[in-house]
């Protein structure tokens, strides 16, 4: 009984304070700018308890943008492994989902799911800030339902 209660409280707390880290795996800046846009007055995700965090050690959610290039694949894995569990990966934008328009290039590996387990895909080229907020809210729901 007590354990259940603790778990519930834990999930409630976690869902309401998502700390996200953003990593550009080789994108064109379109989605990156939209993610940065989330912090500015019009979209302001801090009202949802979402804070952009600079260090992977403090982050819960990894927001990836862009196709994974050969050179960033190592860095991506390192950042993911530095994040404490539980952690979630969100692929933001078409490139990040599948490789997008850069599919077929020799220096591009493809989507983020080639390297990391992805929890949520947000399509769009680039994603609108509303879409990213929608995605993060969906992630919140999942956290509170499944832990």
């Amino acid at each position, binding site marked *: 009984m007590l354990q259940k209660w603790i778990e519930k409280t834990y999930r409630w707390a976690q869902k309401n304070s998502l700390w996200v880290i953003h990593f550009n795996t080789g994108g064109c800046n379109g989605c990156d700018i939209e993610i940065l846009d989330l912090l500015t007055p019009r979209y302001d995700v801090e009202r949802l308890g979402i804070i952009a965090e600079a260090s992977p050690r403090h982050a819960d959610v990894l927001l990836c943008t862009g196709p994974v290039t050969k050179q960033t694949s190592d860095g991506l894995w390192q950042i993911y492994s530095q994040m404490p569990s539980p952690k979630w990966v969100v692929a933001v934008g078409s490139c990040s989902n599948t490789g997008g328009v850069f599919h077929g290039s020799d*220096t591009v590996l493809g989507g983020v799911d080639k390297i990391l387990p992805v929890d949520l895909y947000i399509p769009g080229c680039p994603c609108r800030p509303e879409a990213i907020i929608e995605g993060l809210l969906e992630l919140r729901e999942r956290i509170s339902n499944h832990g």
Partner: protein
Amino acid sequence: MGKVNIDSLRSLIESQTGCTCDVYPEIGNDDTLIIPPERLQGVVALLNDYFEGIHLSTITAQQRETRGNAIEVIYHFYQDSGFSLMITLPEQSPELASVVSIIPGADFYEREVAEMFGVKFTGRDETPPLLLPEDWDQGPPFIRKEDNDE
């Protein structure tokens, strides 16, 4: 100053460095001179002195099927109007003198040409790769033709 006159530029280069150069007519809006590879450094130094610091837009390298896949290196300058110098190098072990000592801004352009087309620039420091991964070993340089045929 108005548009750079290609004929006066040509006679300037020919009289000052003693190299022969031909006008390449095919680039529509940019006058282009073909010069021998070994003269490049001298000609760039001359232009740099003559214009008191010349603006190098970039260095393009490419291969042309009609010329037996020889590597063409084009130096694009801009001085009130654009003009270019074209150099043709053999496909096997291409080498060219570096102009970094004259125009420091050519650094990244030369490194890019070196990585993408395997042109070796002599007379400059060895540098780590700029764009490609350190362990890039997939055969020929990145944009070379034989690698690119589909």
